């Protein structure tokens, strides 16, 4: 079943995130991903996440598809102009990749190649429009291509961004540009997510809530300070500080969050900090394995 079918099915969706290696060897990430077999509906593969240089996600998606996974390839506007975006979308399609997640991308100065030219030729709304055109057999200039693509494109949102009305300005354009689903930034505050889900309800677009199990009090503080729109509630911070086994406590907090938001979203997207073994543990704790 392709991811588009999963979206249509009404099933509670589970996706997990993996990152390509910072080198040429895929064996580690492939072995690690093996733990997700039979557990998730799709595996997301990041694109130079947080502007940190890594292997192209297309290659890892391809290898994961060969191994029987459905993949969602992240594609950012940071590193490619419209020629390169179209070129990569055609290549991904030719390799059997059918799902992409369109996003602007973090600014180069956030990552390990801070002097890189920030491209941003298109924004994420225009990228979604580009994909829609290609799905209709047209390039971005409205000229025919040899056979349409059939790409299911999602977009991202940040339920915690304030003011929300400002965030919605762009999000509504993503919905109009035919985004098939919205994957959110990590959710820690269930109330904030409920409010967001309420606002988005009328659009009918499936919401997939991002979940990051906290690993330590230190990394929780780091996320609080460094990741825009992510606010970890005081209570969770205290629990992480007091925990004798912070990894388990982090998974416990994530499981509680999932329980609270489950009725308000179509699925969850797990971004593990550490191994995929934790993804399995978390899903078991939630009875979602």
């Amino acid at each position: 079943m392709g991811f588009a079918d999963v979206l249509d099915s009404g099933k509670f969706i589970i996706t997990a995130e993996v990152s390509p290696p910072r080198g040429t060897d895929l064996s580690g990430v492939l072995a690690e991903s093996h733990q997700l077999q039979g557990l998730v509906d799709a595996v997301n593969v990041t694109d130079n996440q947080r502007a940190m240089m890594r292997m192209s996600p297309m290659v890892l998606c391809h290898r994961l598809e060969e191994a029987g996974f459905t993949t969602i390839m992240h594609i950012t506007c940071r590193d490619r102009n419209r020629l390169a975006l179209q070129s990569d979308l055609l290549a991904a399609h030719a390799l059997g990749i059918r799902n992409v997640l369109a996003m602007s991308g973090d600014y180069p100065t956030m990552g390990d190649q801070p002097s890189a030219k920030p491209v941003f030729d298109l924004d994420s709304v225009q990228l979604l429009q580009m994909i829609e055109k290609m799905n209709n057999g047209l390039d971005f200039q409205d000229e025919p291509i040899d056979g349409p693509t059939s790409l299911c494109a999602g977009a991202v949102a940040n339920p915690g961004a304030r003011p929300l009305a400002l965030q919605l300005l762009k999000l509504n354009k993503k919905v109009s540009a035919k985004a098939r689903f919205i994957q959110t930034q990590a959710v820690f505050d269930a109330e904030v997510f409920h409010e967001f889900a309420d606002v988005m309800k009328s659009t009918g677009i499936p919401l997939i809530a991002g979940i990051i199990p906290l690993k330590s009090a230190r990394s929780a503080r780091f996320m609080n300070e460094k990741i825009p729109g992510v606010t970890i509630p005081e209570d969770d911070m205290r629990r992480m500080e007091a925990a004798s086994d912070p990894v388990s406590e982090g998974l416990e907090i994530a499981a509680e969050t999932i329980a609270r938001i489950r009725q308000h979203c179509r699925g969850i997207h797990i971004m593990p900090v550490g191994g995929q073994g934790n993804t399995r543990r978390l899903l078991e704790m939630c009875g979602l394995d």
Partner: protein
Amino acid sequence: MIITRPKTIEEILTMLEKFAPSPICVVGCGICARKIQTGGETQVTSLVDELRSHGLDVLDGKMVKHACSATSWDELSEEVPALAQASALLVLSCGAGVSLLGRISGKPVLPGLDTTSIGGALGDDISEGLCSMCGECDVAIYAGLCPKSGCPKSQVNGPCGGSSDGDCEVGGRKCIWARIFETLDSRGLLALLDDTRPPVCHDRRL
């Protein structure tokens, strides 16, 4: 106004050693560079002194009215008798002034400043990056606050995911989208932002 920032004395000395035979003349610009104190009389005089203290042969220093105009050369020729002996010019202006003086003078020209953006000045308050010369100005839609230049990611359809409580994800600045939104909201004109904007046609700048 073109925004410039001074190169360090070390950068200038290295450049002079590599590209310029002495003696040289230092030239400043009386418009933008003077206003933001990167190439006015004061900066020209102090650079001449500093270069001489490093043992360099500097014939003279002069701020012209506007470096990016042919009249700057007439002005220099009239008022700097030593100009003819200068083997090169060290110019404290934006890149356009450096380029233009290079063309008219036929001499090697060296930039003493780095040019960063187009901005403006409200008294001493210098605003950088107000326009990136896209060649199709549609700033009326955005309450005059240009997101192509004011947003590091040139987002024209709303903020990126890094916008948080009015701050930009790129260090120490405000998110231009928060300002656009507030301004249009206060004027009851938010509907201006309803339509999805197309990307910039870069060929319009050719």
